[in-house]
């Protein structure tokens, strides 16, 4: 039973890893392009001049290729500079108003990124905890206590899932239906209930909360079962791991942390 759930968990992890990498890329790209567009269309900006972009881009690219130790750094650099200027010229004309919706879209994706990241953090045991218990409880009962802690976490997630579902789908109070985000969007034929300045329904962003809570509850439930049955050891979530720092002191290479 647990191994089947583990396989399901692994499949969800693969999909989530793919999704978060894609979302972070899209978020960064659209916000960066919006800045690039604004700078490229500002009259007083040097970067609004394609000739300047070509020259400056070429210089930076040549230096970059030289640092990299590439062959024909000058030719490649000039190619990149001219290409950049051409791309800028085309971009500004193809998208005359810029990507004004970029930050709203990115914020909507941030909610998804955060909840999927949170569920990935549950998978890799990265959620910070004030783990006093594992040092205080006798070894014989520590796994049971830790399992109970995971159950409590899963129950909390179920609670938030319930509240998030009410917000999304609405709820009844004294026989009357209080509309949720989906009702609001549907009843206005998509005219209301959208993220500011975009046609993206709010519910599409807010759906991330019940999704994330479902997966979190599943993962902490599974962790509880595995801890209770002794399939995983108690503790072992050292600070470096929880902070996402997989550094090797010998090389100095490090991951990241907030």
């Amino acid at each position, binding site marked *: 039973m647990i191994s089947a759930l583990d396989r399901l968990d692994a499949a969800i992890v693969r999909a989530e*890893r793919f999704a*978060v990498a894609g979302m972070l*890329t899209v*978020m*960064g790209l659209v916000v*960066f392009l919006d*800045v690039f567009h604004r*700078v490229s269309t500002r009259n007083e900006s040097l970067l609004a001049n394609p000739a300047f972009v070509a020259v400056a881009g070429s210089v930076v690219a040549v230096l*970059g290729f030289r*640092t*990299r130790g590439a062959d024909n750094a000058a030719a490649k650099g000039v190619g990149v500079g001219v290409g950049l200027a051409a791309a800028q010229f085309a971009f500004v004309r193809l998208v005359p108003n810029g990507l004004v919706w970029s*930050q709203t879209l990115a*914020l909507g994706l*941030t909610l998804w990124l*955060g*909840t999927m*990241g*949170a*569920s990935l*953090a549950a998978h890799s045991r*990265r*959620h*910070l*905890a*004030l783990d*006093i*218990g*594992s040092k205080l*409880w006798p070894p014989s009962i520590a796994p049971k*206590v*830790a399992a109970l*802690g995971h159950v409590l976490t899963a129950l909390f997630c179920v*609670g*938030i899932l319930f*509240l998030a579902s*009410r*917000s999304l789908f609405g709820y009844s*109070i004294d026989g009357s239906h*209080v509309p949720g*985000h989906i009702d*609001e969007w549907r009843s206005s034929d998509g005219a*209301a209930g959208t993220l*500011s300045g975009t046609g993206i329904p*709010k519910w599409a*962003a807010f759906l991330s*909360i019940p999704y994330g809570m479902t997966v979190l509850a599943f993962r902490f439930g599974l962790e509880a079962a595995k801890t209770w049955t002794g399939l995983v050891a108690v503790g072992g979530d050292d*600070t*470096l791991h929880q*902070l*996402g*720092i997989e*550094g090797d*002191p*010998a090389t100095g*290479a*490090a*991951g*990241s*942390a*907030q």
Partner: protein
Amino acid sequence: MSGLLLAAVMLALALFGARLFVVVGVATAMCFLLFTGDVDTIIQLDRIVTKMESLTTKNVFLSIPFFIASGSIMTKGGIARRLTDLARASVGWLPGGLAVASVVACIVFAAISGSSPVTLVAVGSVMYPALVASGYPKKFAIGLITSAGSLGCMIPPAIAMLIYAISVQGSAAVDPADLFFAGIVPALFIAGSLAVYSVWVGMGSPGSKQPFDGGAFLGALKEASWALTLPAIVLGGIYGGIFTPTEAGAVAFAASLLVTCGIHGDVPWRKVPAILVESATLIGSLILIVVLAFGLNDFLAEIDAPGVIRAWVENADLNSWQFMLLVNVVLIVLGALMDSISATLVFAPMLAPVAINHYGMDPIHFGIVFVVNMEIGYIAPPVATNLFVAAAIFREPFVNVAKAVVPTLLIICAALVVIMYVPTISKGPLNLREGVAFYEPFPWDGAPAKSVAEDAAPSDAPPADAAAPAGGPMSMEEMMRKAKENAAGGTEGAADTTAPAAPGRPLTMEEMMKKAKENAASEAPAE
């Protein structure tokens, strides 16, 4: 009784090893249930989710994933080695040069990563063995690097400052760009204090000096030049008015990919998705704590926590310097007992309005003082992230690391006192940039210090500073901005949603239903 129950539940959760986001979430839910019991329970709890959803209106938050991702990308490459080489080549000739180089490397690396623990790991893992090999006492080396690593809180783009700006949006708003700018000199002041301490220790270690080598310096500068462009692009872009701090995150993200993968080739492009997944995992563990703490902020605003504190300090008859001293002691204790992000999210919106509206503190200056306190929280035991990290990377018992940081902790505390009572250190450069008097007085009499806006505008003009205190009368500009926000359906901040309506969502039906229910309940006994 309710308070005891809350404390007991928190303790039980900690003993059961519940995750931090659960502790924050349960605390939020219990506060609503125990202390505001006059409204339907479920409707109260709905506000937790409403606050989570409000993340989509907080533009400043967008920069955090970007800075985390760019920090991850840069640190996976060989940036730390390049910067430490440059630091050694530039200041290694001083007495205690290697130790000073460690401090310098921490400053520059923090400007790239924006994170204290990462700075500690990246610089410490390179410099600690070198310091010990050069004959520095082990205890000194651990203490210095662990403390200097905490400068990541202060050097822009500092995630701790972004969290502060988000947490006080509704009560004592500050512009993150101003906070970044104001943090530079205090950070350099703290770093300078640590450098002086290093020189003093280095004087007793004859082997700790190395002669200056111009060739080696130029070589190291050339090697590190691309890495140094990143903070230059980010800060230059923000203060040159090219992009906002939020957009700077995306620019930093793109630039870090270009430098690390495209130019240095330290990280192959095919490994970028894995780094992004790592970043997302970290963002995920952070975001749940943050969004659940928004609910707690909402509760604190509803019970008017700043008002309660204000009443208390009025009763205690504290003047401004006494109040600030008390605030700092409380924050240091909190920082030692809680993780810095949770402490900022919960206590900044409570304390900032009192300090600003009641004692005339400048919002930016108070923000910097708060962040320095949180920096101390990173190294003040028992709950000190950097101490745990240092114990792990230096393979030393936690107690030894905690003892080792005592001298540097005291130096940073002394620096905090100076930064607190000399607001010019933080506000001076900002005043200069705004074209007003450099000197910024401490409001010893509790009256508001002469603000930038007041200096810049005629005395009868309304203050144009976006950081105007929420408690005072609104200027026309603030009213216009508020009206625009309302029209756009966005409500930001902690204290702006004291009514249960969800942001941008017509909940009048819910309110009507709730009212009807309350009316029915109140009429029932009469019948």
